[in-house]
């Protein structure tokens, strides 16, 4: 899990994402069990506003430069702005607010 966690923390630090998924897809490939070589990243951030796809991917590749050079064999990238993401999937539904649970004062 080390490489995956490392990718996640670097992307959070650099892109302040509204939504981030880092998925280890290595099991789909011809590598030993438990390998961390093939990843898929879904990254949603307002920092991609007005940026072409190639520049978004280059920005991610630059942040993960060391990992790409030494550890990661394949990196599938799906990059969206907040607005594009909402347009695609409507965003994930918001979780409901807390109503107090067992600490709720009944008057």
């Amino acid at each position: 899990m080390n490489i995956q966690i490392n990718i996640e923390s670097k992307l959070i630090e650099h892109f302040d994402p509204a939504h981030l998924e880092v998925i280890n897809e290595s099991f789909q490939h011809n590598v030993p069990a438990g390998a961390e070589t093939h990843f898929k990243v879904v990254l949603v951030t307002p920092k991609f506003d007005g940026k072409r796809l190639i520049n978004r991917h280059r920005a991610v590749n630059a942040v993960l430069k060391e990992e790409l050079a030494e550890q990661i064999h394949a990196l599938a990238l799906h990059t969206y702005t907040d607005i594009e993401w909402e347009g695609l999937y409507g965003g994930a539904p918001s979780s409901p607010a807390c109503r107090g649970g067992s600490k709720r004062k009944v008057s």
Partner: protein
Amino acid sequence: METIDKIKQQIAENHILLYMKGSPKLPSCGFSAQASQALMSCGEQFAFVDILQNPDIRAELPAYADWPTFPQLWVDGELVGGCDIILEMFQQGELQPLIKETAEKYPQEDA
């Protein structure tokens, strides 16, 4: 010829060029397979280089392209992107006009 000059020449002479693993008919990588499939669907001729057969290009192109992985699609001398970008552009309907316009721009050649 130096590898870097070979790369520059390939990009200059082939206006629609895919660097991939294997060939469009027999791809050796899922990402290269998807990319070449999308490109073939555009219906124009394109050139490809199998980087598994050309380890020198495989080693040097990423630095020249500022792009770490394969496949890489080059159109009219510029890097368009890798597999995800090619597929997303194809699904958005942006790849087809780009390929068509480029093919029309260089009608005398094999693209």
